[in-house]
């Protein structure tokens, strides 16, 4: 059991507010990912949960008990560091058993637990090696094994895969998700990589400049981003943004002016509250690359700058007439080539509209 509750948790480093009043509840056995650009406070937040950093303001509850002043080893949480932080002078087995040995657990029991964890992580042949003689992936496994041996109720990971090469990263991602299923414990995972967040999380917490932008499942964040920051951060390639002005708002649609003399008609959901979109308001139209397609006569046009053939799909990066870059996801057989002059159309019923402050006004979803 590990249910974590953060109430207005903040951290200030001599006058610099690294984490600002974070409210968040993490349910038992949930896999939660903190994601955000570098420097947004992910590590600081995780370290406050771990107990390695004092909480400046607010409260942390673990399973209903206030834990602000509980020392790190008494919180029942284990942490896996980005640098692995293995003890360089100890063998793999001793690294993994160190915490238990220090806690006075009998030797035979320590050995048994180490062996059990080693079996889960396929570390058995490496138990007598030192960290120096291991590859990056193996070191990462040992660091995870060291956490497992303590039988914690929650795991904290700080960018654990960022030092691994791409192929290994994908493999470890899958292994961690499997581990989460097998161990049935709470996991909090910090990363700056939105792909990792999307692929692993039950729920994602998007952080920016020390505060939470949005909390939700991967698909919620993808389809209903609360604001421009989340819309731009989640998804690769990025969502296309078109700053525009709502010139007319009708019953079923609105006319958006992308630039002088260039307007398009965009559907408005019937449920939208009147007044949410007033004529004359500056808005941002957000269209993901798959919300667009190459057509003979679309409302947008430009010249293809770069084409990426990814096999399953083709990405076209198009320089619009006004100089902005537009990314369009075309199918794998699309004959588009760099230098082509193309016209771009919108898939009906897709896209988002954001107000002048960046907050989402509505998201269209396919009927």
């Amino acid at each position: 059991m590990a249910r974590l509750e953060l109430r207005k948790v903040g951290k200030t480093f001599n006058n610099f507010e690294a984490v600002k009043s974070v409210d968040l509840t993490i349910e038992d056995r949930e896999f939660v990912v903190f994601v955000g650009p570098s420097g947004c406070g992910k590590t600081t937040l995780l370290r406050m949960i771990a107990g390695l950093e004092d909480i400046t303001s607010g409260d942390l509850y673990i399973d209903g008990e206030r834990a602000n002043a509980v020392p790190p080893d008494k919180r029942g949480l284990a942490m896996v560091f980005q640098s692995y932080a293995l003890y360089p002078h100890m063998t793999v087995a001793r690294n993994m058993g160190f915490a238990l040995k220090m806690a006075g657990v009998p030797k035979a029991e320590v050995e048994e637990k180490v062996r059990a964890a080693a079996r889960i992580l396929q570390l058995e042949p490496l138990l007598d090696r030192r960290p120096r003689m291991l590859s990056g992936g193996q070191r990462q496994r040992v660091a995870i094994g060291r956490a497992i041996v303590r039988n914690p109720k929650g795991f904290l990971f700080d960018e654990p895969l960022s030092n691994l090469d791409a192929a290994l990263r994908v493999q470890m991602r899958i292994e961690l998700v499997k581990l989460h299923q097998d161990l049935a414990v709470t996991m909090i995972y910090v990363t700056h990589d939105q792909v990792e967040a999307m692929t692993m999380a039950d729920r994602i917490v998007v952080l920016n400049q020390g505060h939470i932008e949005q909390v939700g499942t991967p698909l919620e964040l993808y389809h209903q981003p609360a604001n421009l920051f989340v819309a731009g951060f989640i998804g690769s390639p990025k969502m296309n943004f078109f700053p525009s002005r709502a010139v007319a708002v009708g019953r079923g649609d609105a006319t958006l002016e992308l630039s002088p003399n260039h307007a398009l008609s965009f559907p408005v959901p019937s449920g939208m509250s009147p007044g949410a979109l007033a004529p004359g308001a500056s808005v941002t139209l957000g269209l993901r690359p798959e919300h667009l397609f190459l057509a003979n006569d679309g409302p947008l046009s430009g010249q293809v700058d770069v084409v990426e053939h990814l096999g399953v799909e083709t990405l076209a990066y198009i320089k619009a007439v006004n100089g902005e870059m537009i990314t369009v996801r075309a199918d794998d057989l699309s004959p588009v080539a760099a230098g082509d002059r193309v016209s771009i159309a919108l898939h009906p019923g897709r896209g988002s509209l954001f107000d002048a402050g960046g907050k989402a006004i509505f998201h269209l979803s396919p009927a």
Partner: protein
Amino acid sequence: MEQEKASLAGTIVAWLAAFVMFFPILWMVITAFKTEEQAIAIPPLLIFHPVLSSFGAALAQSGYIHFAENSVIVSLCSTALAVLIAFPAAYAMAFQPGKRTQDLLVWMLSTKMLPPVGVLVPIYLIFRDTDLLDTRTSLVIVDALINLPIVVWMLFSFFRDIPRDILEAAHMDGVGPRGQMIHLLLPLAAPGIASAALLAIILSWNEAFWSINLTAAHAGTLATFIARYSAPEGLFWAKLSAASVLAVAPILIFGSLAQRRMVRGLTVGAVK
């Protein structure tokens, strides 16, 4: 061609400089193997039949063994004391630094700039009043304090090379500061601790000012031995040289054996 000439000249200059610096020691060693008459002969003899009689005389007359024993005990004990104090101090400075830690480190080193003679009287009086004059205890304390700044500095820089994450991982594993020092820092910084200790032993062995001023026949070290030797015995160059060779030989041998370890300890980080 030009370059070769220049580098040849440089080599010659370097060798000359080294020879000039080394000459007194060389001359001392040569003199130690002469008789007293040969030692004062003018012009100095370069070719002679070496004898060991001066060594015999120096050993027989002056209780060399006793002084050597003091040197060994004082340098080892003062080093142990200094390391014992410096270890937790450096730990605190490296891993729990406060606002003034950097200032403190600089200040500690700056105490080395104070001329020792400036505090001779107060220290002499303290030891007189505590009945510690001419005891090995007094020298152990003084030598430990003299070497403390250097030992703290060295340990501090070794500790700083140890990734913080490792200690934080230990913290998460439920290992407190004491356990971290014993199970992590001690083994990880062992090469650094060894070089700091070797340096402290050498410095303490060579320390002359305080041993001459605070001790006499009872607790004197080899530095005192040489200083005392020259005075009452008159100027017997050969015997004095033999005594000096006997005084510096142990530490020279020790130093050359420890040199490789020290250089390694001083140049590479503890963990990498």
